[in-house]
């Protein structure tokens, strides 16, 4: 009987592609007997074109149809097939067949009567020699594996005949089979529709063959076959469709019991795969993953109908397909080959880090020695005290209970948001879990080497020359504000100074790498937790980075996510509920008075007056103060001058960026000195400008280093000048601690007298009322519960006065009466408050007369109170205890939705950031390919060419060239399976290479 071919052409909107397709159809040697056009949601031009070409039938519809759906529409309009010899040729608007395509396809059917589907070779629309598809198969587990996606056509697949499936573009199908199997699955879009059809066709006992001689050009519009556009939205859609198709087919092909299991595992599997995507640094595909899982799980793909369709047509078992599927091992081998194909021979990658050879290790070692000498008296200490230092809670569990939103046991106890700094302290304390306070001792002793290390690593982003990197490390370590923070005992400022260079180094490359963006996000959260006053400046820098990253803004957009999760509860409570937005900038930790400072001092990078200790040193040494008031600004000016020079040299862009950072830091420091939100006693003290000055120092040192780098070898003079200037300015600050001017001392970890800690060991809810006379004759009353004050229990909510620790004034009345001769009966009040001890803080000799008078008054009154017994004078003050025993107050255990929510958000954000930050092989490869420095005058600065790898081992592997084993089984009669064993080639290649070298 005559074969009768009806071509079904599906078109959407692309007229140019359609024109070429229709021209190709007209030019066929064996023309199609009928052409039915289906135009879905088509533009007028498409319809006009169809009408011009006089297609036999035109079906238009307004709906958005899949390829299968459009074909079904078209097929419905045809008469019933006469017999086995009626064929359908499936074409989309961008499938243009060569003239002999239809003839060759039909010829395949003649030689294989049991074939039901024949597929052509697909080549690129614009380039005939590039293969775009030739047959598909699945692995034993069900993953689609196309044989080809993008390869040069060298005839390597021309001998393929029987395949499991072919792609849908240009497929020639017997109409009877089409009817029996029920056409394409309407749930499958452009991906896997042909595969599914061919599998179902094979399950009716028919064969699917390839006609490699028939060539169809495809463009990847997305109607037949996956869309090939590289745009982000299309990539998302492709991922979603591919995953939907995979899950749908898994549910449809599985036996009933397994289907239920697979269906239950859909969403959990999506979560697990999302974690894998995070690790693989492809977080943008997580949405596609979840959408696909949800769509299939909730029946969007009509699994039951598909199963019914499959069962109705199925005649042979699944085992008949087993030979055609690809084993997992084979798939792994193919992937390995692909990867090896992709390795460039002779790559250009970034040079060595040269940490050891370049002297960086020596600088760290020197800093370690200097730090050890300076802080030698802290080495045997178990806890540090003084300044802003307090011990950490003794138990790691308590440390972690003090984060998030929940019960805060400071003062009277309240439910509120903890400081983000508590998270930093918890992390540090967990490192030395046997005695958390030791972490602070170690931090102090190792502060200088840490700062040198981070400074050195940040400098690797600016310069490849070891000398300038070392300069940066030295200058960062000898920053006066850092040394003053160490001497005064400000742990948050010390940690912020150590982490800032890491934030810089991750942040400048965040736009090109997910790993760097995630690392930057975690570091931003940590730095902001230590120094909330820097948050406005850092957010401005983030906005600038967002704008500068243009198309790749997604990574930079993620950066503040952990910061928001960490600060969320505090911002809510302090800002939204309380309206005290300025109080969010308060320094965390123990409140410490900020010394007076002028704008000139801030300009010199010093957080207090006295020229960084030079004024005292000058008077001690007998130098005229003129030397100091002029000398120190000149020295700092020299460093700034080197940085300014860099603005006029090539590579000025990063100089401008760094100076912008310095200017932002300076503005923050100036504003900081005008915001007084933290109460030390009864007086508000300004935010300490030192952390903002660390930012200024970052910008200044960075500008100087980048200027030296721009000067290349001639920059060694400015580098040495800058280094010496910094060292001279910092000299008195370095010697502050050994000479005894520092406030930090070693302690035994007790902030309350031993008597109290012994009593509190049995009853942790016991309160101590601490009374501190102030300089103006007023007193400050604090209630300390348990065995003392701890750094991780400090709360800015209390220190900024946002939270009234004493709502109805009971405690104030009690304290006011207890320090005076009064007729008030104290026992019931003390019992109600759970206070057993009263501690009168010592008045130093330098205190004012009013303070001494108040102290005397308080002492007399407390002594004379017959409800209190004088325990004695301790080194933290005079202690009284109540005559009767008092029951301590139990800590409140309020678990609200807020606690769980904030903790969950924090854990989620941190996990996501950590997973994305984990370096993988491919991310390290990608990083190696990119230059380490940023913004230098030469774009490929520091990149080296790797040697051409030795190919001997590669080619000698017999596996590398052998055919896959399944190809031996399936072969057409008359065609030998290809089997080559490389015999003498390796030696020839080796000889040829040696000749070439000589």
């Amino acid at each position, binding site marked *: 009987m005559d074969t009768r071919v009806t071509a079904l052409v599906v078109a959407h909107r692309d007229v140019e592609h359609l024109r070429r397709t229709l021209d190709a159809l007209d030019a066929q040697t064996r023309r199609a007997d009928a052409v039915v056009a289906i135009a879905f949601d088509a533009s007028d031009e498409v319809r006009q074109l169809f009408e011009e070409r006089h297609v036999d039938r035109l079906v238009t519809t307004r709906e958005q149809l899949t390829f299968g759906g459009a074909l079904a529409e078209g097929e419905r309009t045809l008469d019933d097939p006469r017999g086995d010899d009626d064929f359908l040729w499936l074409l989309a608007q961008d499938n243009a067949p060569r003239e002999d395509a239809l003839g060759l396809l039909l010829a395949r059917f003649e030689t294989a009567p049991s074939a039901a589907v024949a597929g052509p070779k697909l080549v690129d629309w614009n380039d005939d020699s590039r293969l775009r598809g030739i047959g598909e198969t699945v692995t034993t587990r069900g993953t689609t594996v196309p044989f080809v996606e993008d390869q040069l056509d060298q005839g390597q697949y021309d001998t393929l005949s029987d395949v499991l499936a072919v792609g849908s573009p240009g497929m020639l199908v017997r109409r009877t089979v089409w009817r029996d199997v029920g056409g394409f699955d309407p749930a499958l879009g452009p991906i896997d529709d042909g595969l599914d059809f061919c599998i179902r066709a094979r399950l009716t006992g028919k064969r699917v063959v390839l006609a490699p001689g028939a060539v169809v050009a495809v463009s990847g519009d997305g109607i037949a076959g996956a869309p090939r556009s590289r745009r982000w939205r299309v990539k998302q859609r492709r991922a979603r469709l591919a995953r939907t198709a995979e899950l749908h087919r898994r549910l449809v092909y599985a036996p009933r019991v397994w289907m239920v299991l697979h269906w239950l595992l859909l969403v959990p599997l999506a979560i697990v795969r999302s974690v894998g995507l995070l690790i693989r640094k492809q977080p943008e595909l997580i949405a596609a993953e979840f959408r696909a899982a949800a769509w299939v799980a909730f029946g969007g793909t009509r699994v039951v109908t598909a199963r019914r369709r499959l069962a109705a047509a199925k005649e042979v078992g699944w085992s008949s397909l087993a030979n055609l599927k690809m084993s997992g091992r084979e798939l792994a081998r193919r992937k390995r080959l692909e990867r090896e194909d992709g390795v460039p021979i002779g790559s250009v990658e970034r040079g060595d880090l040269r940490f050891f050879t370049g002297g960086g290790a020596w600088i760290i070692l020197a800093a370690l020695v200097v730090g050890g000498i300076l802080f030698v008296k802290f080495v045997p200490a178990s806890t540090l005290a003084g300044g802003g230092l307090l011990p950490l809670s003794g138990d790691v569990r308590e440390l972690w209970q003090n984060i998030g939103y929940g019960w805060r046991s400071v003062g009277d106890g309240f439910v509120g948001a903890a400081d983000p700094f508590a998270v930093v302290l918890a992390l540090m304390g967990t490192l030395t879990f046997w005695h958390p306070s030791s972490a602070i001792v170690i931090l102090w002793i190792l502060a200088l080497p840490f700062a040198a290390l981070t400074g050195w690593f940040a400098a690797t982003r600016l310069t490849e020359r070891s000398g300038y990197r070392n300069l940066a490390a030295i200058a960062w370590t000898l920053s006066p504000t850092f040394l003053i923070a160490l001497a005064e005992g400000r742990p948050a400022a010390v940690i912020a100074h150590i982490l800032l260079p890491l934030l810089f180094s991750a942040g400048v490359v965040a736009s090109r790498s997910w790993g760097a963006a995630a690392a930057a996000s975690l570091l931003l959260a940590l730095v902001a937790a230590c120094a909330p006053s820097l948050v406005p400046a850092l957010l401005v820098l983030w906005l600038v980075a967002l704008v500068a990253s243009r198309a790749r803004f997604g990574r930079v957009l993620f950066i503040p996510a952990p910061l928001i999760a960490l600060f969320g509860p505090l911002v809510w409570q302090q800002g939204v509920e309380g309206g005290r937005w300025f109080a969010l900038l308060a320094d965390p930790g123990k409140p410490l008075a900020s010394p007076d400072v002028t704008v000139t001092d801030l300009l010199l990078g010093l957080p207090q007056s006295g020229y960084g200790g030079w004024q005292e040193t000058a008077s001690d040494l007998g130098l005229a103060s003129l030397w100091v008031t002029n000398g120190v600004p000149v020295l700092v000016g020299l460093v700034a001058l080197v940085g300014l020079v860099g603005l006029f040299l090539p590579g*000025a862009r990063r100089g401008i960026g760094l100076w912008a950072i310095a200017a932002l830091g300076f503005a923050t420091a100036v504003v900081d000195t005008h915001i007084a939100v933290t109460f030390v006693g009864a007086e508000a003290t300004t935010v300490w400008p030192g952390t903002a000055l660390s930012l200024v120092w970052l910008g200044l040192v960075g500008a100087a280093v980048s200027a030296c780098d721009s000067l290349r070898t001639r920059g060694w003079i400015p580098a040495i000048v800058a280094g010496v200037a910094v060292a001279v300015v910092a000299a008195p600050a370095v010697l502050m601690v050994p000479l005894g001017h520092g406030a930090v001392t070693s302690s035994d970890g007790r902030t309350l007298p031993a008597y109290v800690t012994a009593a509190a060991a049995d009853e942790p809810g016991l309160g101590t009322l601490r009374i501190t006379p102030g300089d103006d004759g007023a007193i400050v009353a604090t209630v300390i519960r348990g065995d003392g004050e701890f750094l991780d229990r400090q709360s800015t909510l209390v220190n900024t006065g946002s939270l009234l620790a004493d709502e109805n004034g009971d405690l104030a009345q009690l304290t*006011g009466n207890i320090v005076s*001769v009064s007729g008030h009966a104290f026992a019931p009040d003390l019992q109600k408050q759970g206070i057993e001890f009263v501690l009168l803080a010592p008045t130093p000799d330098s205190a004012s007369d009013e303070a001494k008078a108040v102290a005397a008054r308080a002492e007399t009154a407390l002594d004379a109170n017959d409800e209190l017994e004088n325990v004695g004078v301790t080194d933290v003050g005079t202690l009284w205890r109540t005559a009767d025993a008092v029951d301590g107050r139990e800590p409140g255990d309020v678990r609200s939705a807020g606690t769980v929510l904030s903790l969950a958000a924090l854990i989620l954000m941190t996990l996501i950031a950590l997973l994305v930050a984990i370096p993988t092989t491919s991310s390290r490869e990608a990083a190696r390919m990119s230059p380490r420095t940023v913004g230098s005058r030469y774009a490929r600065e520091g990149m080296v060419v790797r040697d051409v790898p030795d190919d001997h081992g590669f080619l000698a592997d017999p596996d590398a060239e052998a055919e896959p084993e399944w190809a031996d089984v399936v072969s057409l009669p008359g065609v030998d399976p290809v089997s080559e064993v490389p015999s003498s080639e390796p030696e020839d290649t080796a000889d040829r290479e040696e000749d070439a070298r000589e």
Partner: protein
Amino acid sequence: MNRQMRFGIRMAAGGVTVVGLAAVVSAALLVEPPSYRAIADPVSVTPEAADQVRVCPGSLLEVGQDASAATALTELGTATIASSTSDGESIEDTSLTAPDVGPDASGPTVLTLPAGTGTMGASQIQSVGTDTIAGLAAAECQESSSDMWFVAGSTDVGRTSLVMLNNPTGVDATVDIEVAGENGAVDSQTGLDVLVEAGTQKAVSLAGIAPNTVTPVVHVTSTGTDIQAWVQQSSIRGLVPAGVEVAGRSAAPSENVTIPGVQVYKGQPEIDTQEYDDRRPSLRLYAPGDTATHVTATVRDEAGDEVSTIVVDVAAGAVGEYPLADVKPGRYSIQIEASGPVVAAARTSVAADKSGDFAWFAAADTLDAPFVVDAASGPGRTLVVHNPGTDAATVTIGDDEVTIDPGASKTHQLKGPVTVTPDAPVTAAVNYTGSSAVSAYVVTAPKPASEPIDVTVR
């Protein structure tokens, strides 16, 4: 061209950046940004008023009345207490126990006025006439304190001094008694850490702490709670008792000290010798500290005119006693100005045929609130109000309103309790003048009601 353009752009960008930085710096130097300062609002707490508690010295004690028990203390009779309030509130009275004396001892009286608006004044008087102790001793019942100076007493031959420590509170007190004499501070451990239990009286013999000290000054400090103390001094010359006095505390060391109501009695004893005799009217001075102090003591009469001046340099740490020479009998006030803090008191005596008596006049703190004087009845009880200031003061004594010139004193014969209302700080003392029985005490103010205090709770 490309290179030149790049160069030009770079220069321009660099220049703009430098200008921008300069603008930021100058803006910071010139413009003062608005500041935000959080204000703590401390709670002003006015302490609840406490009860006024005045302790009386209790009856006079004799040491070693029974020769077989040389250190035993015996009560000599009971003192007469007089107390009254300004607004008629009733006063509770309790007594302390005196375990040193014995379980049956009557013990000193403690007068408590519940917290209210009124004020209380009380005193006691006792007259004895045994073979060994004779004389009149009057003392004000006073509120307790933790730091007291007693410029009185003597442990010379024939002189017996006792330090009476009364603890009216419910808390034990640990008392340190430090004595300085004419040769400097007396180093003795006996007077340190004397435990005075709650609600008891303890009497410590001064001879046990500082024997053979002719002109002691006693400094009593207590920790644990406030107590009240007196120095009881009795004198016997040969076999003739020469008087007894219960001396109250002097004003705290200060550079300006006033001793009101010093009375030089008519019957002055005859003194032949030029050597030290404690019957001479004298001024005892002590300057605690390390440096010698230059003191000018001006004796003024009732009208405020200067009668005599003593200018001395008191050695550091040593007590000096200086006779009030050429001062005729009468009532005087002594104004002391010193270059450093000093404590002072004056002593005068009276002699009769068979006996004599002496009186200690302590330095007084100023009184500026209305006060009640209730002097127990005794011979010649007189209230002396002295104006130590530079402006005239108007004082209402009972129903009379008088004006006292600066430096002058006003006397008022007492017939019963009287309320005195001054409009400026004045000092007051009560004198008893009999033919051979004299005594005096300074009127002290109640403990000041505690000032309101600002409390910030963190």
